């Protein structure tokens, strides 16, 4: 197999990039596109720091061969903030104190966003399950759970108002 130029949707824009069969999507994002918001904590799918949303699902970018991105719809942390400002998850993470060292935060937000994109009234257990693949060593997860619950409330309130998020 040889290098191939593929295209995919990245944070709502179509991008084209040459990738080799040995590369993982995380390598492409971080090393070639310099989107370093997606973090590398282990490279083996164990820590969740590189979580992105891949065709609507939270996935570890370190485990996705770059070739598989062909035609995919990919969201990274860089695409979460909109022209209107921070996403409710970002606001909630800041306001509840869910951010400490910040290295797990992008992946944590992407896992939570994949959940809230589908379910705006998640139970505590559903929140815990959604972020259970994301290791955080600073917070004990307490304020992270609070942040996701809080963001869900904001999203529901915004949906009632017909807001665009």
């Amino acid at each position, binding site marked *: 197999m040889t290098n191939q130029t593929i295209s995919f949707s990245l944070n709502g824009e179509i991008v084209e990039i040459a990738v080799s069969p040995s590369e993982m999507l995380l390598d492409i994002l*971080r090393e070639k596109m*310099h*989107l*370093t*918001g*997606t*973090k*590398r*904590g*282990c*490279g*083996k799918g*164990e*820590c969740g*720091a590189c979580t992105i949303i891949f065709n609507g699902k939270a996935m570890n970018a370190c485990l996705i061969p770059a070739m598989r991105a062909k035609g995919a719809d990919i969201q*990274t*942390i*860089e695409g*979460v*903030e909109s022209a209107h400002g*921070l996403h409710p*998850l*970002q606001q909630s*993470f*800041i*306001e509840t*104190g869910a*951010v*400490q*060292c*910040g*290295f*797990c*935060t*992008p992946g944590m*937000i992407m896992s939570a966003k994949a959940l809230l994109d589908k379910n705006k009234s998640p139970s505590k257990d559903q*929140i*815990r*399950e959604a*972020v*259970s*693949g*994301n*290791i*955080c*060593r*600073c*917070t*004990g*997860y*307490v*304020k*992270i*759970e609070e942040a996701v619950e809080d963001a869900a409330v904001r999203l529901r309130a915004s949906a009632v108002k017909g807001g665009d998020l």
Partner: protein
Amino acid sequence: MSQFEYVGKSVLRRDGVDKTTGRGLFTTDMFLPGMLFAKVLRSPHPHARIVSIDTSEAEKLPGVKAVMSHKNGPKNLFNASVPMFLTIPQLERVLDQYLFDDVVRYVGDEVAAVAATSEAIAAKALELIKVEYEILPAVFDPLEAMKPEAPELHAGKGCTPEGKNIPGEIVKIPYHDVEKGLAESDVIIEETYKLPVQKQVQMETQAAVAQVDGNGDVTVWSTSQTPHPSRAILGKIFNIAASKIRVLAPPYVGGGFGVRIGLSAKAEPIAMGLALLAKKPVKLVYTRKEDFIASDTRHPGYITIKLGAKKDGTFQALDMKSVLGTGAYCSFGAELPGVCGAMTLAIYRIPHQRYHGHSVYTNTTSCGAMRGFGNPQGNYAMEQTVDLMAEKLGIDPLELRRKNIMKAGEPWCLPYACGTTELAECMRQGAESIGWDRRGTFNKPGSTTLRGLGMAVGTHVSNAWPFCVDYDNAYVTIQPDGSAHVASGVPDIGTGTSTSLVQIAAETLGLDMEHISLTYGDTLGTPFDIGSHASRTCYAAGTAIKAAAEDARRQVLEYAAGFFNIAPEHLQIHKGVITPVTSSMDECSGSGLCQLEEVKEGKGNTVTLEELSYHAHVRNKQFIGVGRIVPPNAPPWHACFADVEVDTRTGQVRVIKLAAAHDVGRAINPMIVEGQIEGGAAQGIGYALSEEITYNDKGRQQQYSMHNYMLPTAEDMPEIHSIIVESSDPTGPFGAKGAGECSLVCPASAIANAVANATGHRFKEIPMTPERVFKALNS
């Protein structure tokens, strides 16, 4: 109403937007033009001599730009941790490692490093390096390593009358007459406990990027907790003036928990060495496995507690002994046993005490600082023994502790005062939260699920003094537009100090936080500071910043006084506006604020700092405050309560709830303090139940990934009730004490006491894994 404008408020973190949007830059994100990528060849043997090393094939590989091994590396002996630079004059430094040596002492020890145009080429080059080893005998347990027949890890170092392989001085803390105290005791309990290797597992692995300019000046982007001391150690390793080296964080650091103190795992000097050879920037990012096996761990070891008490429960004597494994290199091995002993002795008022402790070299990963720094080990041993004493005396463990805890102003073994303690109140609130009065009422005969409650108490430091060299400096510069710039040498390793330190500056200056910028974690442009560790950043760097801000404020008010025609001490700054203390905001015609000249003419008495600073600026004057302090120390306190359930069929321990009540002095930012309490609780739960690195008979680490080193996940976490019981310590900035580490000191002790309460079995070895618990309950 709070008496403060900024202190004591849960101000939102200033790094929040950067860290939630992916904009925040970490060392592992750094990318420089022409940058090379490095990889390290590591020893597969726990102890061996390198008979020969041939790097010629690696050097020939296209893309390889530099190779370093013991043959061409610097030959200056050092200690990768900060005792290299911060050992107090009364003690001798233990310098026991080279960047690359011809002897390797643990599986993972650095043998050689390569810099190449890609990581893949560097990895390929490592395969081409030929190394011939002469295998040497190895030893993995600290007690075994002390025996006469044990191999000597560092020739000529550590042979003492008490045993082999003991680096540094043996720590002895005498306090009155322990033999007399034991003789006067009605009940004596003596037990030995075995503590495991715990790993920090900070989320960003150890990493560095080094760049050398044409004049030989070096810049190192680093994950260090201690930029200034790290710079000094780099200078000694390479025999380069420290002033030619700049160490900085970019600015974010993906967690620390002690592992970033000094140059643990040597990413900085290896990247710097290769950059010096290649004359190109070099980036070295450790894999998670490398981080597990090659960066400092918590010290494992054995702790014996002998506790004597009167029949009524009054403690009479405490005799404590520790033997801690420090791994292949000393790191903090000479200092940590002292903190282990001192913090354990300080919990209770015991008239007669004695501590004897040291560490021991073994052929394992170096052990150094991890959050708590020896204290969780000592606390576990002590707090199990206190519960045993309570059982023996038939006294409720809460009651027994209440009777014996240290009181403010009472004598103790430490060289600083116990100025404040709200431990009794912490115990009251924690007991109430956990429902302590339900203790012993849960279990029905024949039940396979046993529930129990347990507690533990402890203290820690707010600073590193008197255990190491310890002073802080800070600058506060008032800009000509009335904003302020603060410079402090501490980095923010995730604990929020880049926010809380600005709160301290804002409160002192009377200036809004938005008008204050902070330079931190960068040796260029900040004065010397020993760094972010020992729960000291807010307490000690905060004291220096407060002093610098007071100095700047004094200069501002002295300048203003001439216009107000009153003494400077009768002026105040509030939200960037200067007024007499006695007056409320007065009006000038129009804006409500006056020009200085109008004030002088008696036409008003309010002027902005902006107006004043600009007035001074155009007259060639700037207000620059300098803080130079030697911080004292003060004890934070913690009472931890655990509610647990043990499944006797599987050995699984589930923590239902943890109530953690803390006296941190004044909480400068309560939300940040809660985060410290909750995070420490999670690490304490891991220490109690699942986290452990073990070694097989070949000296290999059996846990080296998040797959087999069991960290708590969101689904493992119980309800955590963090309780802040405020006191105001006279020594800390606005009454603050340390908050970073105390949270990890007591949880494991409390959980084990709860497990003992549930099952009747006391664990003298942790973690209480399902295997260990199942075996204990079914033997």
